[in-house]
């Protein structure tokens, strides 16, 4: 195996431990199912630098031994991975067999016919160890977010399966219990409450009040601010097919969002990416991290990486004006290149990665959050997660609450990223240029309408 990662110092110990574990974990699979059928082939797997990769890397030699397939992992930073992937897919070069992706990107790749439908592989008895794989063990919603009929603007959750999930991310509030206690504040349950206390958040020992990801790209309306928008009752397209980008709720949510940031966040807030959001909160400079990824928790809880390891709590994202809570979701998945020359071997790898055993192994090594029910039921995974939060089980409770309301609520369209980039730009205009929210959003809506 050629793992392309600078930091795998735990490798030898892990390898030994897993070598032993493999003997017990896989015998059932090895007996009834021919894992060696593609022995001698090699596949290229492109991964995005992510905790999942660090968790997976030490396990790969196990797969190579099980199947005789030679695996080359190519780990790239997220942007770089996108660029490389697009170069490969668009020229149908087939240099990558399996890659990390997400439903949002897959809508474009599937439209173009660049990725392989996975159902035939999943159903095949020769290629999939049906009993051990147990596809029903995936959370239905998470798995189905990778289905799409390839009809524009509809059909998500139905039709062909384009990828298999490897972890899921939703959003929550992370806060510093000591600061809230010091200020005598309760953790806000609604956006109205949050707006009320926004002014006071930096009065305590935290230097600044609130941090959130706020840049000019599609992640804004899709993920973090998207969670707020959806709780205000805004979906990009309503049930009648009308754009809601400048609906009255959307305008209200945008105004509140900008007010919130102007009140509680420092001035640089208009350019915060995940990097600043996570780092700022982990450094203990902020009282509250707003609608941020739940899977930052492992970093916050690690005293090696965080100054707040013993002072962090989690809460569900606030309720909207109508008492509703909804949230965005990001589901890292793996898909197969339609131009791959080694599809059967690639599938064996894909099904091995997403198998119960491998998923649990990666979860235990920090691949959050699990996408299989069996993983959440696993005692070791539960024990790992249980210690997180202001009290035992808090993180688990919050993610469970969020899990019920998290979904991808966007119309599938290959131009969606451009549309959402335009939407984000409008929100930035409101923040930076003091443009009236309605004017900015309606201008964006007109532009978006033209992109369809």
């Amino acid at each position, binding site marked *: 195996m050629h793992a392309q990662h600078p930091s795998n110092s735990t490798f030898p110990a892990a390898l030994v431990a897993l070598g032993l574990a493999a003997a017990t974990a896989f015998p059932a699979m090895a007996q009834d199912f021919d894992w060696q059928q593609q022995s001698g082939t090699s596949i290229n797997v492109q991964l995005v630098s992510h905790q999942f990769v660090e968790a997976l890397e030490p396990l790969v030699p196990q797969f190579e031994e099980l199947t005789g397939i030679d695996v080359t992992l190519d780990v790239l930073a997220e942007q770089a991975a996108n660029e490389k992937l697009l170069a490969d897919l668009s020229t149908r070069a087939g240099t990558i067999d399996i890659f990390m992706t997400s439903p949002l990107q897959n809508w*474009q790749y599937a439209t173009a016919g660049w990725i392989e439908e996975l159902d035939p592989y999943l159903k095949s008895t020769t290629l999939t160890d049906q009993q051990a794989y147990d596809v029903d063990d995936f959370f239905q919603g998470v798995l189905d977010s990778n289905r799409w009929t390839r009809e524009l603007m509809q059909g998500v959750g139905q039709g062909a399966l384009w990828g298999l999930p490897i972890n899921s991310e939703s959003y929550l509030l992370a806060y510093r219990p000591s600061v809230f206690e010091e200020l005598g504040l309760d953790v806000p349950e609604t956006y109205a409450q949050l707006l009320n206390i926004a002014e006071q958040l930096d009065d305590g020992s935290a230097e600044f009040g609130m941090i959130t990801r706020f840049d000019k790209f599609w992640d804004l309306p899709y993920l973090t601010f998207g969670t707020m928008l959806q709780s205000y009752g805004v979906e990009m397209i309503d049930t009648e097919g009308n754009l809601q980008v400048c609906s009255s709720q959307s305008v209200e949510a945008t105004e509140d969002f900008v007010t919130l940031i102007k009140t509680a966040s420092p001035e640089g807030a208009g350019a915060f990416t995940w990097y600043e959001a996570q780092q700022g909160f982990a450094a203990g400079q902020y009282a509250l991290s707003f609608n941020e990824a739940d899977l930052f928790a492992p970093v916050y809880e690690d005293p090696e990486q965080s100054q707040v390891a013993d002072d962090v709590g989690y809460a569900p994202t606030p309720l909207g004006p109508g008492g509703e809570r909804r949230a965005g979701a990001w589901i890292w998945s793996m898909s197969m290149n339609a131009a791959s020359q080694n599809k059967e071997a690639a599938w064996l790898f894909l099904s091995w990665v997403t198998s119960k055993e491998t998923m649990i192994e990666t979860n235990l090594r920090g691949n959050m959050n699990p996408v299989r029910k069996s993983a959440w039921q696993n005692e070791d995974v539960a024990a790992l997660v249980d210690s997180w939060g202001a009290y035992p089980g808090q993180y688990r409770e919050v993610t469970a609450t969020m899990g019920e309301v998290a979904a991808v609520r966007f119309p599938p369209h290959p131009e969606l990223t451009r549309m959402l980039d335009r939407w984000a730009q409008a929100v930035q205009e409101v923040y930076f*240029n003091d443009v009236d929210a309605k004017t900015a959003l309606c201008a964006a809506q007109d532009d978006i309408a033209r992109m369809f």
Partner: protein
Amino acid sequence: MSAVNKPVISSRMAYYLMFAPALILLLAVLYPFAQGVYLGFTDRKLYLPDAEFVGLSNFAELLADDDFRASVVRTLAYTLAVIAVQLPLGLAIAVLLNRNSIMQRFLRNSLVLPLLIPPVVAGLMWKTMMQPQSGIVNWFLVSIGLPTSNWLSHVDTALMSVVVIDTWVFTPFAALILLAGLQSIPDDLIEAARVDGAGSWLIFRTIELSWLLPFIVLVALFRVTDSLKSFELFYATTRGGPLNATRTMHIGAYEEAFRWSSIGTAMAVVFILWCISYLASLFLMQLWQRRAEA
């Protein structure tokens, strides 16, 4: 050409043989170039199988697009700022280091260091140093009692912050060239002026500066063309934001191609950028040749 140097046929052939391999190699590389240019005249979307030749319509659309026009202005402003800062600064450093004390030699050696950090890494490092709340730059400014800035995080300051980073990465390059220029001035020229009673400033203005002119044009040539197509620093720091404050032509082309799959439009943008670079460098080359002849 001196009369002695009459080329024989065989030696002319030899000259052709000498540069032909290099030319052939670059022409082979030129083939993808041509393909890229051609794409600029099509409506190619990466995710659609077919593309049509659309003539100049990509270019017409771009010229009518406010965002694009703004990005041209931004690119030019960036380039001008880079030149306006780095030429004088590089010159000042060169003058400052044009001595042979131990201190100067140490500084000259350390001047090379920024060149050895890949620009994309330099960009990332500077971004975290410039972070308004947690970065060391603002911390330093506060500790010596100077006002702070939002640097890359605000629309008003972002572009100039990238200029600052660019200055760190590439001024050493300018300074090293100008330093070499200064050191190539024959000592007797300066001595003669000094004997005539000229002060340092007068010597600098009348002798050193005029000697340096070709070097200055050379620095300008390199820095102008590199700044016009500057990509990695933006990619590492702002990726065009906040809002569109740092969305230069090259970043715009990147967005069109890799975020939005509009490779046709992207190539049209890049082609225009290439033309601007070409014209600018041609202009500077001619300036240079004229100076060199004078």
